[in-house]
C-alpha cells in the first residue's frame, strides 16, 4: 500500500488497501489508543477524526483515507482537544476507560463544528459512542464545561 497521514506525520504502510484503518493503527503502527469494540461501526470505540470529522476506523479501509488527515487520541493536541481532555479529567469521567478515546474525539469533532451544543445536539452527536460503564451523565457535563471554557 502507500502512505497515510496520521497525527500530522506521514507513515509508509505495508498493509493491503482493504485493511481497516483500525488494525493498521493498532497492529502496524502501535497506536493503540484507538480501540476495537464491535468491528461493525456499532459502538464508536474506534472513532478517529478524518479531516476533523468523526469516522469509525473499524469499517474504514485505508485506501479510502489515503489522501486525508487522520487524527487519533495520541494526536489530539489542539487547544480544543486539550480543553476537552481537561474537562474529562476534572469530572473524572473515565471508569474502565476503554471507550473514552472515541468519546473524546467525538466530542472534539462536535465542538469544532458547534461551540455551544444543546443537550439535543450532544445526544445526536454522541449517541453512536457506547459506554458500557454508562459514564454518560459526566460526558454530557464535560462537553458543556469544555464549551464554556472555550468561549
Amino acid at each position, binding site marked *: 500500500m502507500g502512505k497515510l497521514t496520521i497525527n500530522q506525520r506521514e507513515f509508509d504502510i505495508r*498493509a*493491503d488497501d482493504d*485493511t*481497516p484503518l483500525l*488494525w493498521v493503527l*493498532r*497492529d*502496524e503502527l*502501535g497506536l*493503540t*489508543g*484507538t*480501540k*476495537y*469494540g*464491535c*468491528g*461493525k461501526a*456499532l*459502538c464508536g*470505540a474506534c472513532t478517529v477524526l478524518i479531516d476533523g470529522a468523526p469516522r469509525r476506523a473499524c469499517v474504514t479501509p485505508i485506501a479510502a483515507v489515503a489522501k486525508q488527515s487522520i487524527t*487519533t*487520541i*495520541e494526536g489530539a493536541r489542539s487547544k480544543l482537544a486539550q480543553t476537552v*481532555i481537561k474537562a*474529562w*479529567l476534572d469530572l*473524572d*469521567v*473515565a*471508569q*474502565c*476507560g*476503554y*471507550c*473514552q*478515546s472515541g468519546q*473524546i474525539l467525538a466530542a472534539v469533532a462536535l465542538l469544532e463544528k458547534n461551540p455551544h451544543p444543546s443537550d439535543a445536539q*450532544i*445526544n445526536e452527536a*454522541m*449517541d*453512536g*459512542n*457506547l*459506554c*458500557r*460503564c*454508562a*459514564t*454518560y*451523565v*459526566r*460526558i*454530557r457535563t464535560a462537553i458543556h464545561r469544555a464549551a464554556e471554557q472555550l468561549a
Partner: protein
Amino acid sequence: MSSTISKLSRRDFLKAGLAVSSGLTLGLRVGPAPADEVMPFMPNAFVRIGADDAVTIIAKHVEMGQGIHTGLATLLAEELDADWAQIRVEAAPADGSRYDNLNWGGNQGTGGSSSINNSWLQMREAGATARAMLVAAARLPIPTPVKLKEAQDFVYIGRPLARTDGVAKTHGQALYTIDLRLPGMRTAVMLHPPRFGAIPAQVDDTAARAIKGVHAVLQLAEGVAVVAENFWAAARGREALKVEWDESRAITLDSQAQRAQYRELADSAGHSLRADGDAAGAFATPHKLVEAVYELPYLAHAALEPMNCIAQINKTGCELWYGAQSMTSAQNHVAHLLGIAPAQVKINQLFAGGSFGRRADMRADYVLETVRIAQALGDGQPLKLLWTREDDMRGGRYRPAATALRGAVDAQGEVQAWQQRIVCQALRGGGVPKDGKVDKTLHEGASDLPYRISNLAVDVHIPEPGVPVLWWRSVGHTHTAFAVESFIDELAHAAARDPLELRRSLLRDDPQRLAVLELAAAKGDWGRPLAKRRGRGIAVHRSFGTWVAEVVEVKLGDAESFTVERVTVAVDCGIAVNPDVVRAQMEGSVGYALSAALSGEITFKNGAVVQGNFDNYPLLRLSQKPAIDVHIVPSSAAPSGVGEPGVPPLAPALANALFAATGKRWRTLPFRTPSAA
C-alpha cells in the same frame, strides 16, 4: 499535606546511616549514598518508595472501571501520610499467599464488591507500618500492632480525590490486554461451535492457510484456532475456514420453550429454602390473593473490551497477561492443564476494559483457550487470543432466571403470607446438591427477605439447560430484587397502601434499609404530585453489605414507549472512601441496570444464540441516560462495596413507576410490553 513522608523519610534514613536489619527487608543502601543511588524502600508487599520519592502502591485487585486502584491507594496513602501527588499504582502479580482477598482466604481475586471491604484494614496497616518504619528508623524494631488513625484525623479517606488512572485513560495510554505487544507475539482468533456442546468434526483449512499472514490453523476441543501475524489476517483466515461440526451432543434450546418450561416448574413445589409460620395455611384462608410471575432473560456482560488473553509457555512455566478477576483460580486451572505447579503460572495484571463479572469465570474459559493454543503451537512464543464482539456475545456465561410469587393480604391491609418460588440455573452447575446446600447466588435477596411477614416460604427449582452461566454485576440480586421489590409494590396496591408506607411498616428490624429508603423518598420527592402520563416508583435492596434505595421517574411517550427521566439514589456503604467514586459507581450501575431493563436479552433458537453484536443486543446510549442524583448516608462503619449494589433496585423501581403511570404491570424483562393490568 503538612508532612510528606516520602521526602522526609528517605533523608532521615540517609542521615541515620541505617543498617539494614535482617527482620526488615528495606533494600536500602547502607551509608550516606546520594539520593539517586538509594535503592527502593519496600517495607511490605503493598508499597514501595523509590529514590525519586514516588510512592508506588501495589494493588492486589484488578482495575476494571470500579476505581479500586484509587481506593486502595487512598487507604495506604492515608496512613503513610504520603503526598498524593507522588502516588503511583502498580498491579500486583498473582500470589495468593500475599495478595489474597481476605474475605476469601488464600484466594486472590476481585468480585462480590469485596475489594475495599477486605482491604480496609490491610492497606491502612501497610501504610501505617511503613510510616512507623520510616519515622522511627533509628529506633528499631517497629512497635506492633501499629496504631491506625481515628476517623476524624482522615485527610484522604472521605475526600473526592482524582482517580489515579484518569490521566492514562483520557490520553489513550492505559494498557489493556488488547494493546500489549510482546516480541515474537502472534495473534489468534477462534472459530467456536455454533451451539454449546458441539465440537469440530471435519476442518478444511486450505483457503485459510493461503491468506497472507496466517501462520497456523489448529483444531482444538473448543473449536478451530487461526494464528496469524496480526488480528486482521487471523480474522480473514477464520472467515475462510470450512468446518463441519459434530452436533450430536449440542444443546437444542429454544427460548420460547424454555420460558414455558420455567413457568410450568414454577407451578410445583421446589426445594425448600425457608419456611416460617404456615404459608400454606394462610393461603387457605380467604384473604385477598395476589399472584405474579416475573421473567428474566439471559444477559451478556458485554464489556466493551471483548475477552482476550496473552499466554507464553516456556521451560519455567506459563506466563499470562490479561485483566484477571480470578487470579488464584486461573493459576490452578492453567497449572492443571499444563501439569505444572500453580506457582509456575505467572499472571501480569492489566487494565480490564469493563468486566462486570465476566473476567471472573470460575472455569477460566478464555484463559484456558489461550493456553491451549499456545500449547498446541509449542513454539514458546507469546500468543494473544482476541475474541471478536460476536465471540464474546455468543460465548455464554450469561445471567439466568424466573420467579413466581404469591402473596395474601387481609382485610386490614396487612400482608399475611408470602411465597416465593425461584426457577434458576445454578452458577456452579447441577441441580439441588445432595447436602441440600443450595448456592446462595440462586436466592440471595430472597431467602433473607427483610420484610417482617409471619408466614413466609421460599423454594427453588434448579433446571439444567446446558447453557454456561455466570455471575453478572450483582449476581443473584439481579433477579431476586426485581421479583421481591416489584411484588411488595403489587401487594401495597392490593392493600390500597402507599408502597413506601407498606415497606416502612415491614422494615422495623432493619434500620439501615429504612434509612436509605427514607432518604431516597425525601430526595426523590416521593408523594409530590406528578404531571399526567408520568409515574414514580421506589425500590430498596441490600447486596454485598451495602444498602441502596432508588426512586425512578418515568414519562410516557406514544403507544407503549416511555422515557426514564430521573433516578434518585440513596446509598449506605459504610465510610465512603472516595465519595466521587461512590457516586460514579451508582451512576454507572443505574445505567447498566437500565440498559438491561430496556433492551438486554440473549435468546436461543434451536440451540444457537440469536444475538451477536450491538445491533441486536443494544446497550444504553447517552440520550437514554436519565438525570441521576446520588445521596450518600454518612457512616462511621467499615466500608462495604459499591461496584454492584446500585444495580438491583433499578428494574423494580422502574416497573413500579410504570405501574404508577399506567396501571399496568411490567413483569417480563426487558420491558418491551406490559403484562396484564
